């Protein structure tokens, strides 16, 4: 079996990204939509760390920029989850539902 290259990780990241996109576009439950967004962010993180490994093989072991970016993305994911779930709780308190197709206050 051949060694695992960067492309293997990129293909896996693309598959996870697609699963996340399908989840965001087709699910009704907002909690699962948010979880699909987490899947998308994790796919991007996997790409970043794989590219960091590739970059390290060219520029030496201290070229860790991709991993630093991954940590920033994790920070953003934490902030996004906190605010998103706060909005979700506020919405559930008002309308007693968590389905995206019943969130239509701004539609006309």
């Amino acid at each position, binding site marked *: 079996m051949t060694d695992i290259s960067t492309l293997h990780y990129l293909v896996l990241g693309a598959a996870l990204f697609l*699963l996340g996109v399908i989840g965001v576009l087709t699910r009704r439950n907002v*909690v699962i939509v948010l979880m699909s967004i987490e899947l998308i962010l994790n796919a991007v*993180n996997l790409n970043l760390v794989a590219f960091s*490994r590739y970059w390290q093989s060219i520029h030496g*072991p201290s070229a860790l920029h991709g991993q630093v970016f991954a940590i920033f993305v994790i920070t953003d994911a934490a902030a996004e*989850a906190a*605010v998103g779930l706060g909005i979700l709780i506020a919405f559930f308190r008002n309308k007693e539902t968590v389905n995206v*197709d019943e969130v239509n206050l701004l539609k006309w």
Partner: protein
Amino acid sequence: MNPALNPPLSNPPVATPYFFYGLAAIMIIGGILVITRKNAVHSALALITTLLAQAALYLMLYAPFVAGVQIILYAGGIMVLFLFVIMLISIERQEKERPFNKQWLVGMVAAAALGGLFIAVYTTRTRGSVLFPPVGRESYVEGQNTQGIASLLFDLHSGTYMFAFEIASLLLLVAIIGAVVMAKKRI
């Protein structure tokens, strides 16, 4: 590249390609379960499995610090938050409703277009060579990963991302205030 900076790896990597394929299968199956389960708790558990397998993949990529952050912050922090919210909102009603909305066909078409784009990019060959060549094994020095990340983040002279780090702390403060404002009944 200075060869003195990169001493040859004393012991070969433990992780073989079989590990990658096993972990990738766990991640894909977990992702499919996340977007297909009716019960949100089951989705959350599948997502936790996916995140843990991804942490193992980070270890295979010689990124132990990111792997630790992934386990502590994602699987330990964010997913607990998700489970709290799932418990707060009622899950009995969701069990009986249909889990997918009416635009599922449009969603599948959009995902297929995106997948076609991915395939088109990843099969591109520039001047007869593959776009992403395989990586050698010799670029890892034991015990310098966390130190290297810290010097990129915190060092006053070589810290490229120090300002971005401070901005990230500000972002987290704003997120905390925003979450409290949203979730509180009356301010």
